[in-house]
């Protein structure tokens, strides 16, 4: 399938919003991160709004958007609901933060932030589980979005902590970021292996066919597309973009940051940028390999 950029941006910004807010919630529960609260909430809100605007570009009739609550079994309806719940919790956190004497939101607000921060990628992931598209129809997609939320959230929180000089949380956030990148790398690699081995799911009995309405279009190379991640058209994007830049570089930088050397301070920014690149390249790859199960012709 052609990459759907509005949806790619939407899932990215939802993971970013959920990650930042969830990480702030975690710090809040631990009684830390008071100075970075406002910045975290603001960044999370901006990410939510940008994600929301992005998805509007995917809709052909956005003026009918409020029909969107009409059908509760739809993943889009679920995404709508979780975005609204997320915004409400964000507002509650903001109000309670201002009302508290120590300028730190109550712990229950932190717990709520963690819950909605986690629900964001989970609900988003579930909305893409479709039996028609075996490459997506796996819990690995939900796990990836969840891990991506941790990666983006912890790295953004590190940058905010750096800017706001919240020195007592940097080590902890660094550990979260490090382990999140490791876990995400494992998930991505397993996911790529599963996709690579899925070529025989796609009408494999039919070796030859012809679509008379597309006489000059070759047969869909189903096995070739599914194996393109490791050695094919997606290999450069996968190995260089997703694995090397998206995971290995951030891992190296985060290991270096653990040494607490001041000159490495800007490394969290570079690690974040690399993680963003990896997030996009993997999402694009997931669209490229998302053949429908009866993928004999291009609609």
């Amino acid at each position, binding site marked *: 399938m052609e990459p*759907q950029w509005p949806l790619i941006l939407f899932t990215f910004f939802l993971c970013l919003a959920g990650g930042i807010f969830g990480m702030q919630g975690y710090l809040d529960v631990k009684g830390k991160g008071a100075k970075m609260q406002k910045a975290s909430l603001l960044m999370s809100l901006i990410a939510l709004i940008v994600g929301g605007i992005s998805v509007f570009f995917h809709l052909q009739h956005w003026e009918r958007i409020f029909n969107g609550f009409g*059908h509760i079994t739809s993943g889009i309806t679920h995404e709508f609901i979780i975005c609204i719940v997320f915004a409400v919790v964000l507002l509650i956190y903001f109000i309670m933060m201002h009302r508290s004497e120590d300028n730190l939101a109550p712990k229950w607000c932190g717990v709520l932030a963690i819950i909605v921060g986690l629900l964001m990628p989970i609900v988003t992931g579930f909305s893409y589980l479709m039996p028609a598209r075996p490459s997506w129809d796996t819990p690995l997609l939900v796990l990836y979005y969840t891990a991506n939320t941790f990666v983006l959230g912890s790295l953004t929180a590190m940058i905010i902590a750096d800017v706001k000089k919240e020195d007592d949380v940097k080590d902890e956030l660094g550990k979260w970021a490090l382990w999140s990148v490791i876990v995400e790398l494992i998930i991505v690699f397993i996911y790529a292996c599963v996709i690579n081995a899925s070529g025989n799911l796609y009408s494999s009995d039919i070796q030859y066919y012809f679509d*008379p309405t597309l006489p000059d279009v070759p047969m869909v190379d189903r096995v070739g597309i599914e194996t393109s991640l490791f050695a094919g058209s997606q290999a450069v994007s996968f190995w260089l973009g997703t694995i090397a830049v998206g995971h290995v570089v951030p891992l190296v930088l985060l290991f270096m940051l653990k040494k607490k050397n001041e000159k490495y301070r800007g490394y969290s920014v570079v690690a974040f940028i690399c993680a963003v690149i990896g997030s996009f390249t993997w999402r694009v790859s997931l669209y490229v390999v998302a053949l429908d199960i*009866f993928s004999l012709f291009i609609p």
Partner: protein
Amino acid sequence: MAHYAILTDLNRCTGCLSCTVACKAINGVPVGHFWIKTLRVGPHPKYEGAQFPDVEMYFLPMQCQHCEHPECVEVCPTEASHVREDGTVQIDRSKCIGCRFCVMACPYGVRYLNEEDRVVEKCTLCEERITQGELPQCVSQCGARARFFGDLDQGVDNFEAPAHPDSPGCQYDEMTQTRVRLKDYVEPYKPSDIHHVVDVGNHPKMMYLLREGREWRE
């Protein structure tokens, strides 16, 4: 509630594309879009290592399968895609927001975005015709009389195709109501000869008749 479907006798289908053309003509399907396509499946070797002429093939008219559990309806956020009382899957164009989740959720790639009206479209099983007791246009125009339409509740043997009226100068109503039954018209078949395209839990209702001796491929 009826359960309308179409059965295509693949031993009869000649791949003439009449169904494809008739559908486009009556439904005004935009250029480049097809609510029904006729694919050629094969030629495949009849047995391991077989060479020409020991090969076989069949034509496969592919359209919306009007599934029992349509995933396109599940994922539609506005209920634009819905199951009608007659069991067919329809799209309410006024509700469609063009999110194309139904396109992604359809296992068969038979939904299209109408770029002019910015709504998703697909085979309606000629809703406006079947509600008047007529046959879908692809069934009416089938050049090989390979396509039969009917209600699954009445049994597939009773599916109908158009037939020649006794009097050549008959009126339109008589012409459209002159039918043959599947069981009476086609070569004998067994229940095991009736196939469906690949099912991932959506239970497609369209049927394909390919008799013993020819290999059905999914």
